């Protein structure tokens, strides 16, 4: 089949995912995040489901929030916090990249097993969504830096959105907007907590955050 814009975008997303495994510094991660946000929110335009006016407007808003506001807020948080840019990793970067490759391949394999041709005819959609999810999880578990964890969370959300955005049966835009708001608010609160963490421990290393146990 001919090269479809969606698949092109998604391949780019996959690439960015691979980068985000290797990304050693917060700003890069944020840029990748922004890029993924934009792509993810663009996909519905091309998936060719019902395209009435409302949806385009909604797509714009999504793009604004996912692609701009959220990354920006994180960025500002860093600015305020002014931490050292290096990410301390639990899993080393080279190892991470290999993990990433493996995970992406696995994701593709899985999604090829699930016969979802009925649902969407974009081969890369599921691999991209799943690997976004997995990457988010990975960042959440493998990066000691709190900001990276937040970014991981957002990646997960992007993945879920991508996953959901392709089905014919979809919640109304108002509902999806609500979800978006929740995510946004969540990110905001996380940003605030980040600042507080910074103020209390003058560092955002989660190693400080394991005093409560048993």
């Amino acid at each position, binding site marked *: 089949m001919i090269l479809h814009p969606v698949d092109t975008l998604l391949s780019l997303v996959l690439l960015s995912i691979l980068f985000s495994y290797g990304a050693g510094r917060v700003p890069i991660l944020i840029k990748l995040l922004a890029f993924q946000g934009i792509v993810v929110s663009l996909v519905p335009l091309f998936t060719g489901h019902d395209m009435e006016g409302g949806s385009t407007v909604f797509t714009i808003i999504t793009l604004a929030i996912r692609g701009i506001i959220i990354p920006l807020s994180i960025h500002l948080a860093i600015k305020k916090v002014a931490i050292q840019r290096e990410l301390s990793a639990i899993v080393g970067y080279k190892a991470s990249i290999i993990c990433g490759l493996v995970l992406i391949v696995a994701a593709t394999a899985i999604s090829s097993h699930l016969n979802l041709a009925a649902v969407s005819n974009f081969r890369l959609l599921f691999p991209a969504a799943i690997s976004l999810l997995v990457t988010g999880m990975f960042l959440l578990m493998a990066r000691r830096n709190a900001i990276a964890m937040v970014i991981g969370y957002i990646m*997960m959300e992007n993945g879920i959105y991508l996953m959901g955005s392709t089905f014919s049966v979809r919640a109304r835009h108002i509902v999806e907007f609500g979800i978006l708001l*929740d995510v946004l608010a969540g990110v905001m609160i996380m940003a605030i907590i980040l600042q507080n963490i910074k103020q209390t421990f003058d560092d955002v290393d989660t190693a400080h955050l394991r005093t409560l146990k048993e």
Partner: protein
Amino acid sequence: MVEIVFLAPLIAGFLVFFMPKSLGRQLLVGTGAVHLLLSLILWQTKPSALLGEYFAVTPEGMLSLLVISLLFFLISIYTVSYLKESNLQSETMFTGFMLLFLSTMTMVTLSDHLMVLWIAIEATTLASAPLIYTYRSSASLEATWKYVIICSVGIAMALLGSVFITLSMDVAGLDSALSFSALTQVAEKMDPLWLKVGFVFILVGYGTKMGLAPMHTWLPDAHSEAPSPASALLSGVLLNCAYLGIFKINKIMHAAGLADFSGTILMVFGLMSILAAATFILKQNEYKRMLAYSSIENMGIIAFGTGIGGIGIYGAVICMIHHSLIKSSLFLSSGNILLGYGNRLIENTGDMVKRMPKTFVAFFSGFAGIAGFPPLGIFIGELFIIVGAFRAGHYLFAGIFIFTLCVIFAGFANQVMKMSFNSSSEQAGEFKEKASMVWPQYILLLTSLVLCFFMPDTLYQTIVDAVTAIGGGLK
């Protein structure tokens, strides 16, 4: 006009931020009263919602709503004098977010839409996070961080699960609204594989929020670090809201004829939670954490009962109601103890029976109730669950369940007796037990006591309606 019930506290909450302390306190209690009134009206005249697609009055929702507003009213009364005793610098924040929290939880109970439910539950997380951070200590900061990050991730899973459920409809080529009422209609036509996957994700997601092991990890930290009224709300109602989500999704599973699948998973998670609770109650040295783990235990019991089906589900719902009543009373009492001894550690308390007799009565009878002694209601619930388990032939599970309950009881009793009867180590200043700081507990316990023996028919009917929807019953 259902929405007003959660809009009112929402507005009130935002107002409080711009109010002086004293006015804020009055508004808190006032809103509590109004909310209670509204939900009673709602209970009587079951009206239809404006946004009927998203909100509806369901029996299970009404049950939780009634519990929520009753608890919130009493807790708000307690909170006022609690705030007087302990001067927080960020009091308006506290009261405001209490109200927002209330509104979000109310929204959970009223939402009848797969996605809206998710929105509401996520919203509860966001609204309650500031409550946990009230004390501004590093410990509370850590607790808040864990609460927000773990719950958000967990609930993201629930969102994914909801997406999968839509997918299951997609695969089966169905096109229906995402309201639970509509979903239960078409449930048996859905693609079972994706439905199961969706259930798994949603269970894990909302289970994280409900405090099912092994996703319970945030719960003890949050409950112990939050101010006692907030803990009471978290443990008494928030967990129920999460359970409500699982309940609703289980409804779909039941309609789809996958009740065995979901039931087994629920039972296993329930047992795991009870075991986890036992592990940490045995040698617990902070009483608030102990109460938190006991909440995990009770959530486990509820999940277990729900998984059993039949009379077990009835027992589970009874457990849910009584657990809310008793556990919140316990947390309020723990607030008194914290004020009285100025200490969270069990070994630094003691001789409660002499030093704060009123609180002792509330605390000890609360403990007895949680431990499953009549005349408080959890006894009935546990009885139904156990007999239900035997009825369903899960002898092994029943055995583990019973054994673990014994262990938990031993640990809990040991700690509570230390607190109540051991000679108190340090002679802290005498704590004045204000009536407004013991009566809420007494009222909660009395309610549980009355409900143990007599239930208004309307309440009973509602419970039966709720449980029959997921294959529960009295046989």
